[in-house]
């Protein structure tokens, strides 16, 4: 957990290596590696410039617009922001509980969102170097062999995503910019025809999800030691859990455990999250650095997302996912799984759970109920927290007497993983950079480490990735001494 490398001694005497994807607009990520005189990487910094202006965008708007408005923050997981804001506005309108129909339709929408998001990773399994990266031909050949036994992955990945999108469309009313969740409930329930429509495909969807977990296990075990060790860092982990300790994505208490699995806090009411989580600021990044207050800034950083959720929960409520969770946890021999590449495995266990949970919900008559909304006495503030596909997402709002938002505070999933991503990159960089000549292996492995977390780098807008990565090596005098560019085709050019 030490971040001693974060602030290196005498950084002015280091070489600076910049990895910068070029994008059409802001919203790009950049990796800066500072090299010391001994040629080891002493500092690694993932810059994400996009996380600014969220709060300002929201301030001054009426609270009832929030669930729709915040979807504009992220083009990738608008439903996560939609539901987090809806939960916060539930508090504001005094709806302590939702009607069964409202809660179940929101859950269905959230499962659809998580399914479609995670399905993208299943799709990318058909391009193993995209998810796992390879630094030698033998390893690459073995994994490709596994993939070649499953030529249908790409199609299944696309159709799994499509199904998730259909769940979102049916529950939110529109393909994008849906208005399903409103303060205190939802604005429509499902028709019997809509339920039947989704039921038509769900058995197939579950089958594909099972196949996805089996496939990633094969890949992971094909090069077990490598996958276990790659970018592995020992961290605390935080996630939401049910009251009985079960896996939860929509509503529950917060649980944090340290790198050995010991409890830091458990079943915390998320409306009090500011008592347990704080954020620090660094002068080189727009993105804040959250930490667990009781552990302090140096030791309190943590990971969120699929790896944290599967590690932290006591069980899955659905049978197929629970079988997979037990197998996953067995590799830790009683300790949390810390492999960064295990994010992909955990992600697909969650995908399987989502398909099972959708199937269960589609049999629930509450989905076609007519009791859609609760409300009570208006409150001056509200907090909504959910587990978004990439991790815990916090929304907090304070309003004035006219219902206008005076203050908005968001901690998005990628921000929660901020320090952990830096640590993973640093570990990889120290392993693959030796000397002052950049290598394709370094470029690839840094990408692989970032991709495991699936950070939200292009939040809210799209970026043309014609030149997805640029790697520069600059010495302590600011002189560029090496540069690699990786183009969208995968071609890597040395341009100095």
């Amino acid at each position, binding site marked *: 957990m030490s971040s001693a490398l974060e602030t290196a001694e005498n950084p002015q005497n280091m070489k600076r290596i910049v990895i910068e*994807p070029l994008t*059409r*607009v*802001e919203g790009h*990520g950049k990796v800066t590696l500072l090299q010391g005189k001994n040629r080891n990487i002493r500092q690694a910094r993932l810059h994400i410039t996009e996380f600014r*202006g*969220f709060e*300002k*965008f929201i301030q001054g708007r009426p609270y009832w617009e929030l669930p729709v408005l915040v979807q*504009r*923050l992220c*083009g*990738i997981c*608008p439903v996560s922001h939609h539901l987090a804001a809806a939960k916060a506005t539930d508090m504001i309108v005094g709806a302590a509980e939702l009607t069964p129909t409202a809660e179940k339709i929101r859950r269905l929408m959230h499962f659809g969102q998580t399914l*479609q998001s995670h399905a*993208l*990773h299943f*799709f*990318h399994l*058909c*391009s193993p*170097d*995209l998810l796992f990266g390879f630094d030698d031909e033998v390893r690459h050949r073995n994994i490709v062999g596994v993939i070649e036994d499953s030529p249908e992955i*790409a*199609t299944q*990945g*696309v*159709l799994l*995503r*499509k*199904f998730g*999108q*259909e769940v979102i469309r049916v529950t939110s009313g529109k*393909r*994008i910019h849906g208005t399903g969740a409103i303060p205190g409930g939802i604005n429509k329930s499902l028709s019997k025809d809509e339920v039947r429509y989704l039921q*038509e*495909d769900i058995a197939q969807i579950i089958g594909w999800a099972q196949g996805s977990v089996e496939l990633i296990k094969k890949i992971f075990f094909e090069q077990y030691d490598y996958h276990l060790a790659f970018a592995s860092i020992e961290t605390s982990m935080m996630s939401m859990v049910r009251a009985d300790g079960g896996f939860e994505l929509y509503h529950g208490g917060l649980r944090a455990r340290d790198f050995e699995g010991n409890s830091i806090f458990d079943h915390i009411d998320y409306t009090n999250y500011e008592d347990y989580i704080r954020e620090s600021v660094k002068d080189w990044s727009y993105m804040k650095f959250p930490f667990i207050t009781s552990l302090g800034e140096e030791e309190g950083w943590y990971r969120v997302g699929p790896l944290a959720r599967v590690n932290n929960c006591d069980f899955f409520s659905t049978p197929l996912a629970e079988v997979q969770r037990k197998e996953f946890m067995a590799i830790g021999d009683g300790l949390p799984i810390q492999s960064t590449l295990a994010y992909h495995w955990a992600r697909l266990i969650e995908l399987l759970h989502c398909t099972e949970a959708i199937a269960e919900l589609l049999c629930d008559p509450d989905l076609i109920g007519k009791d859609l909304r609760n409300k009570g006495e208006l409150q001056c503030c509200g907090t909504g927290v959910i587990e978004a596909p990439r991790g815990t997402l916090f929304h907090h709002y304070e309003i004035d007497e006219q219902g206008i938002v005076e203050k908005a505070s968001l901690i998005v999933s990628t921000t929660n993983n901020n320090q952990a991503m830096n640590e993973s990159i640093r570990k990889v960089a120290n392993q693959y950079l030796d000397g002052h000549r950049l290598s394709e292996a370094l470029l690839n492995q840094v*990408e692989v480490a*970032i*991709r495991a977390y*699936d*950070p*939200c*780098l*292009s*939040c*809210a*807008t*799209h*970026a*043309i*990735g*014609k030149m*997805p*990565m640029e790697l520069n090596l600059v010495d302590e005098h600011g002189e560029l001494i090496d540069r690699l560019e*990786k183009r*969208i*085709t*995968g071609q890597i050019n040395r341009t100095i």
Partner: protein
Amino acid sequence: MNSQEARAPVLIFTYGNPSRGDDALGPAMFELLEKHKLESNKLDEVDLLTDFQLQIEHAVDLEHRRYVLFVDASVSCPAPFELQQLQAERDDSFTTHSMSPASVLSVYQQINHRESPPAYLLTIRAYEFGLGLEMSTQAQKNLLLAYQYIISGQWLDEIKQFDCKQHESNVI
């Protein structure tokens, strides 16, 4: 989930974030075309779709099309707009968060094991993308010119020229 539903032979797919200044050019074009389609009873052979970003599932939307036109904002194209022919191109970028139209074509080929339909990208010159910004005045002017270009059918004439050039190069 059924991709065999009745589909128009031409798809115009716009994309962008309506709350990101000139990134709204795509969805704004969608609104203009949708209104035109409703009011004029024209564009019968055109399906209109819009989204925040391109993603792999949009490859399914390309199925059973004769032509596909993507419409996007761009800070690098000449004003007021530019039409380009697209070729499928695999995307190996480090983030899963955005795709180019060319990479959507690549996904189409990957899952269908055949060539994607002829596809074109109409980029409209954009200037500012800040969160919460209104669309810039110049981008609005460019939008209207691009809109006229589409509804007048000029883009269809132009893609025929692309096709002729392609044919000539194949012959050569």
